[in-house]
């Protein structure tokens, strides 16, 4: 075997993954070729260095923690099954909807209440006239006064 052929197979040779006949051929070559032997030594050095990493030698509480998580998962699953066919609803969008509905209803109520107090309604005579002006019914009999005359009389009442 030539050096360039051996070097392609050195990694697999080092890992013991070549077929037996090829392992034998590479071994024979390495006996007589110091360069290829040096290459192999360098690869072995890399592999040895990789062993110098942190490792777990034991994990005595691993099962206890895992068992706890398994129980928690089983409980969640049982709770869901007890809830039957109810869909899993996240609380956040439900709360958001409730808040929105409450705000809208409050807005309507407050708007209506404030509008009643804001309009110059029942308290003054001119208020009553405003109401009557706004409440013109097409089926009512027409008066002799025009709308402008009524308006003038309202203004003159207010300024007095």
């Amino acid at each position: 075997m030539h050096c360039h052929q051996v070097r392609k197979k050195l990694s697999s040779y080092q890992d013991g993954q070549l077929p037996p006949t090829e392992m034998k051929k590479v071994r024979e070559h390495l006996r007589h070729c110091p360069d290829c032997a040096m290459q192999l030594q360098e690869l072995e050095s890399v592999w040895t260095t990789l062993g110098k990493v942190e490792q777990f030698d034991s994990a005595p509480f691993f099962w206890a923690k895992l068992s706890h998580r398994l129980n928690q998962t089983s409980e969640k699953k049982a709770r869901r099954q007890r809830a039957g066919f109810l869909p899993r609803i996240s609380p956040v969008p439900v709360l958001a909807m409730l808040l929105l509905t409450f705000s809208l209803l409050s807005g309507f109520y407050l708007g209506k209440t404030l509008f009643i107090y804001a309009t110059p309604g029942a308290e003054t005579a001119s208020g009553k006239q405003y109401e009557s002006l706004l409440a013109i019914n097409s089926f009512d009999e027409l008066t002799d006064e025009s709308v402008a005359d009524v308006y003038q009389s309202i203004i003159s009442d207010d300024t007095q």
Partner: protein
Amino acid sequence: MKLSDEQLMLQVKKGSHESFHELVERHKLAVLNMCLRFTRNKEDAEDLAQDVFLRIFQAAPRYQESALFTTYLYRVTLNVCLNHQRRKKILRFFSLNGKPGNGSEKDDRTPAYQIADSNKPDLEIEKYETQQFVQKAIDSLPENQKVAVILFRYLNLSYQEIAEILDTTVTAVESRLHRAKLNLKKKLEPLREEFHLS
């Protein structure tokens, strides 16, 4: 008589917690050490390993004895670890402090308790720095090479087993390991010179 992993898993499929406990005890160190290669700290590795076994347990009703249990277990472990790594990369990218970090302040500090408990603190620091250097070299590999190295070097799997886990060919595994070793040789050269490693 000792049951095989596949037989135990079939018991777990029927709901046996004792069989699952046995499976966990048999394989927890392999899974923990595999996760540690991706997380660089033991707490995160333990969380990931728990996620792996939780997934295995939850998927037990659908388990079919179509492959070795270990092939299935390591495939799940790899998926969990790679997803974790990708999430961390995204978090790092959007990190508010603008500095790339690996999400854990613990990673670059020497565990104080190791130094405090040791008679030779300098040796502990040196050992820790070597570990970190080697781990960084592994982390710098392309993902496919890193995975091949972890499965072969730390789980002692054969090329055939690795090929089954990764759903690829033996030739591809061989090629990835060969390139990984050449890359690691370059990256570990400073360490070998500094500490005169053999």
